[in-house]
């Protein structure tokens, strides 16, 4: 039993901090806050040069041969500094699925460029009527000679306006329902017939609705077999579920503690107030538990096990609760936006308050996770809804 941080973690964190000092500039941070794009091309290229885009891939494939947790430390370090990470993180989900299941020519066309930080892939799963049910897919792909013609609409396609490709789930068997009869494509985003509509979110993040009208894609860009999109999705979704979520609860806690320990103009420290102390103590516990559950994911993966969705429930749930509670504690100044000079702690509290709520929705809602845990861990009958029948 050893809870000491592994030396390789501290080493990679130090490397990442040095990288951040060099590459994550103040301008980049402000641009990211202003646009909510989640993407910076210069940063991506710099990461690519270090092999840190596809950090877990072998060096020969353009990666850095790191383990999953080392890779997540790099991402967390960039995020902590305010640098954009969504583009890279999202791209790697389909990239890993492509690496596992795509044709050799497609792999060779895409993967080196992904690893180099030159290619961005966005996700086209969810549809207006679908919600958490990604298999309620109505976007159709119809074979036409050696290519496919795609028609449909996808919601929540973050950085669709900047991406090179979209990893697009389509229905290729018109008679099918639910998870069968689907096929996955990697659609070049400069193909005619694609229209993007910007969607602003509460959390400073920009996302898009993407319309596909008679979009013609070569069969070359098919990922996995025809009507076997379920398998491709599974590989990509699994990669998502097993990412140890570097705890944002801890990030927020550290910010709140620093706020409380910093004397104000009159020399008063809020940490000396019983009402603040008590909450920060409770917050410290939740942050520690969120970290530990995340570390366990890393450890179980390291020894080749399957960690399950535990950390993905506690971390985001505690993060959401504290993002709201911290506003009470810090007071109205906590609500001042980063763009205002008088913002407290650089506007962090306002930012977290706005964006935290998404963390219990994205990547599987907390309700689905609870049902999964009840089934897988406790052997309870299915309490998740059944996949669409109609």
């Amino acid at each position, binding site marked *: 039993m050893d809870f000491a941080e592994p030396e390789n973690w501290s080493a990679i964190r130090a490397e990442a901090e040095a990288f951040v000092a060099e590459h994550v500039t103040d301008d980049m941070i402000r641009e990211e806050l202003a646009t909510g794009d989640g993407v910076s091309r210069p940063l991506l290229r710099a990461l690519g040069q270090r092999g840190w885009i596809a950090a877990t891939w072998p060096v020969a494939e353009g990666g850095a041969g790191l383990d999953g947790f080392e890779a997540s430390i790099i991402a967390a370090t960039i995020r902590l500094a305010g640098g954009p990470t969504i583009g890279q993180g999202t791209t790697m989900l389909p990239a890993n699925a492509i690496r596992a299941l795509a044709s050799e020519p497609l792999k060779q066309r895409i993967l080196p460029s992904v690893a180099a930080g030159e290619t961005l892939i966005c996700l086209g799963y*969810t549809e207006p*009527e*679908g*919600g*958490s*049910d990604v298999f*309620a897919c109505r976007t159709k792909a119809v074979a036409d000679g050696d290519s496919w013609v795609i028609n449909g609409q996808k*919601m*929540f396609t973050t950085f669709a306006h900047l991406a090179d490709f979209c990893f697009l789930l389509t229905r290729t068997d018109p008679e099918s329902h639910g998870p069968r009869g689907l096929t996955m494509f990697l659609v070049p985003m400069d193909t005619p017939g694609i229209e993007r509509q910007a*969607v*602003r*979110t*509460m*959390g400073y*993040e920009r*996302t898009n609705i993407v319309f596909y009208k008679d979009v013609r894609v070569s069969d070359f860009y098919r990922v996995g077999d025809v009507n076997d999109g379920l398998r491709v999705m599974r590989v990509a979704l699994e990669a998502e579920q097993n990412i140890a979520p570097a705890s944002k609860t801890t990030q927020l806690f550290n910010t709140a503690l620093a706020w409380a320990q910093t004397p104000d103009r009159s020399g008063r420290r809020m940490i000396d107030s*019983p*009402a603040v102390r008590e*909450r920060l103590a409770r917050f410290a516990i939740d942050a520690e538990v969120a970290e530990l559950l995340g570390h366990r994911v890393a450890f179980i993966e390291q020894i080749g096990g399957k960690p399950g969705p535990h950390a993905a429930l506690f971390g985001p749930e505690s993060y*959401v609760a504290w993002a*709201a509670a911290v*506003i*009470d*504690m810090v*007071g*109205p*100044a*906590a*609500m*001042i*936006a980063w*763009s*205002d000079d*008088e913002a407290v702690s650089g506007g962090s509290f*306002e930012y977290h*308050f*706005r964006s935290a*709520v*998404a963390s*219990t*929705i*994205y990547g599987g*809602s907390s*309700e689905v996770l*609870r049902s999964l845990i009840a089934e897988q861990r406790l052997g309870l009958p299915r309490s*998740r*809804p*059944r*996949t*669409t*029948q*109609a």
Partner: protein
Amino acid sequence: MNLDLSAEQMAVRELFADLFANESTPERIRAAEPLGYDPALWAQLIGTGALGIAVPEGLGGAGAGLLELVLLAEEAGRRLASIPIAEVLASVRLLAEFEARDLLEESMSGAKLVSLATGTASLADQILADGAVADYVIALDGERLVVLARPAVVRHLTNAGSLPMARWHDATEVTELAVGSRARQSFDVACDEVRILRSALLVGLSFEAIEIGAAYARVRRAFGLPIGGYQAVAHPLADAIVATDGAQLLTWKACWAAASRHATAPSLASMAFIFAGQTACFAAQHSLHIHGGYGFMAEYDIQLYFRRSKAWQTIFADPQLELHGLADRRFGPVLADMAGDVS
């Protein structure tokens, strides 16, 4: 015991329900962001004579009571009206109490916007709820209750709750309303009216946040069923509506106690404020959550409710500190220092 509104009160409620439903539409609310102030709506409210509702007839008001203001605030909360409510309505009653006729007249007529600084720290250290749009604020300055004029430079603090909040540096004193214990007493009563009116705003907000969530859960289908049929979606909404009913009763009771000068009035005002805030935040957060990714989209209304639920409470007080204030009111002061026993 009578928990019903009188016919007149029902009419007041209906009047403001209509006004805010028609004039504080989601489009208008969005258009008023980020400042959180809709001058046209303000003019419309002034036009109804709302600011004089609870001002004695002899001073040009309608002579009704705090409850009518609570009903107004509930409806304003329901539609997230982008105008000052709680501090302004409390201020107008302070002006009436001290018969500051000129300011009162200017306030009721809408010529000047008079708000209240509810903190006890020096004015420069307070963030004023209506600071960016007020012309005057009433503030407690040590032992004196004074009216201060807006300084030349006031900068709106852009914030998550779209409150027109700002700090006032170097405000000039215009007049003194009271000194000594009378000043403090009247200020405390005004702050309790703010508590009650903020509770009412939050109750209205909470009811509508729940309705938005329920409306979505009734029609939105996932996995072949309306999501409202799943207990994880439905049960927290049930908890929220029950708590909101409770918060409304508590607010009304606090209002009744204040009007009848009942000894429990200060406790009830604190209770209402704490409970309504907690309830509204819970309701708005759950309603947003069940929207899935849509709740997060700027174009869905629930995010407006979510952001204001927190702002409308936090701008007045930290609910945890309010709990200690409630303890003082309800249980009397601490007689012996036992803070040492805490650690």
